[in-house]
């Protein structure tokens, strides 16, 4: 088995991994290695051919492939090594990585620090236990996107989409532009899962009906999907009898959520927050294992790639300080929240650094305030929705006022 020693190993060559590698190299970390299981860098970006990326990071409205190519060019300029077709099969708590690829065979990599940047996976049919037959023609939105945008196949002509997450909305438009008929988008929640911009430009622009508080209760078809039955749900998400509507179609697309892909992290003993599906981290995005950091969608599913990149840079900065000093200052202030908020990341802070907090509210609310009592902070929020992450930067000085915890909550008025 080939053995390699590196300063920093980055697992995943999507936007988070690339941005972490770039920042790490720019900060002077010597030996940086990216491990990527696909045959190309860029992660999911190359198939996200729509625009709307990079407004914050590059100050320009770019498409996914453009955003990726800029990062990849920078990685190449800096001479950062990336191993493609390389599947990491094991990460240990001493940071040793076992990986495999067709040219090297088995590889053992001994990094001084690791950045986890594996991204997330789509929730599938079995994860949401959809009833009905099991014909061909049921795709996750990301799979449909890859088929249409990379491989050049239109996977269906009459489409129903379940879930109104951003990828689902984007695919509603994409199917329509390619000549398919999107007959309905059904969303189990009483509000859309994706950004308002996408509801307007992907559905309303093309007159695609959005059925809120609706779910799929049956799929019919033997070899291929023949119809999908949707029904209205009550407050407890139970279908209401009499509201069923059978829609003839050949394809059902699922856009029902993303889950951080943390199998490797768990294997190493990284503790996972059930609220985010990602690691518990401190302000440097260091996990409970010293020298292992997490960033991007493997940490928490972000709204924008710009924020993914931002988190990657924080993790790279953390890795740099860790490599220099052998450890990072302890973060003793616990970050808590009440039930008006679903999660807040990071989970621990030290009060010695400025920190960018990201969080999602539990449900849409109007005319509210985001409050952190311990720091005397009250910020007016005219309108909050779960689909739009709240991002809040607090200064070291402010955070250092806290003793042992800070609590985020949303209050009325």
């Amino acid at each position, binding site marked *: 088995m080939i053995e390699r020693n590196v300063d920093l190993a980055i697992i995943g060559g999507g936007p988070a991994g690339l941005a972490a590698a770039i920042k790490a190299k720019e900060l002077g970390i010597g030996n940086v290695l990216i491990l990527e299981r696909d045959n190309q860098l860029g992660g999911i970006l190359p198939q996200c051919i729509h625009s709307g990326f990079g407004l914050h990071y590059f100050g320009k409205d770019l498409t996914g*492939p453009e955003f990726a190519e800029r990062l990849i060019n920078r990685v190449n300029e800096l001479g950062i090594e990336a191993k493609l077709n390389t599947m990491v099969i094991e990460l240990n708590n001493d940071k040793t990585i076992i990986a495999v690829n067709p040219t090297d065979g088995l590889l053992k990599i001994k990094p001084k620090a690791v950045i986890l940047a594996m991204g997330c996976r789509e929730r599938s049919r079995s994860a949401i236990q959809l009833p009905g037959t099991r014909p061909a023609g049921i795709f996750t939105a990301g799979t449909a996107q890859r088929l249409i945008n990379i491989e050049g196949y239109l996977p269906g002509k009459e489409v129903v989409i379940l879930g109104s997450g951003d990828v689902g909305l984007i695919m509603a438009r994409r199917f329509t532009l390619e000549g398919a008929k999107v007959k309905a988008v059904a969303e189990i929640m009483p509000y859309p899962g994706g950004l308002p911009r996408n509801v*307007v430009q992907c559905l309303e622009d093309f007159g695609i009906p959005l059925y809120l508080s609706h779910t799929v209760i049956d799929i019919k078809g033997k070899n291929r999907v023949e119809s999908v039955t949707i029904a209205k749900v009550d407050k407890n998400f139970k279908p209401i009898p009499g509201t069923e509507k059978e829609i003839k179609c050949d394809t059902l697309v699922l856009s029902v959520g993303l889950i951080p892909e943390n199998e490797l992290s768990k294997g190493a003993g990284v503790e996972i927050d059930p609220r985010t599906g990602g690691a518990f981290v401190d302000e440097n995005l260091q996990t409970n294992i010293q020298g292992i950091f997490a960033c991007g969608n493997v940490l928490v599913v972000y709204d924008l790639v710009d924020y993914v990149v931002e988190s990657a840079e924080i993790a790279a900065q953390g890795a740099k300080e860790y490599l220099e000093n052998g450890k990072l200052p302890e973060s003793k202030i616990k970050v808590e929240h009440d039930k008006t908020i679903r999660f807040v990341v990071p989970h621990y802070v030290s009060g010695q650094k400025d920190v960018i907090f990201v969080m999602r509210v539990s449900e849409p609310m109007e005319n509210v305030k985001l409050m952190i009592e311990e720091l005397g902070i009250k910020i007016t929020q005219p309108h909050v929705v779960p689909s739009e992450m709240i991002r809040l930067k607090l200064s070291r000085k402010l955070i250092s006022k806290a003793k042992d915890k800070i609590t985020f909550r949303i209050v009325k008025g």
Partner: protein
Amino acid sequence: MEKTYTCIICPTGCKITVTFDENHNIISIKGNRCPHGKEYVQQEVTNPTRILATTVRIKNGILPLVPVKTEKPIPKRLLIDAMNVLAKVEVNAPVKIGDVIVENILNTGVNVIATRSIPKK
């Protein structure tokens, strides 16, 4: 005529109601909480535009498609027509990011450019 728009300029998502005559001259705008909302609906009523992002076929490339976009937004009513033009386009590899794939599509004055470099197979 009266129409309600969801403003997409910021997360607030104001519901803005516009009344206009048959020539799309705006009579009133209600529901916006800031001036950006007013600008947004004026544009939406008079001449809504969108960036079009899609793919065209490529010969001898490492992939069968090259992603493209309109360099600037084009009128929304031309999106499907532009798709029909691009459906007939096939280019040869290699293509570089930023290369013009179709000049002045549908006389809009806007070029369609490649958004990814596709090397030869």
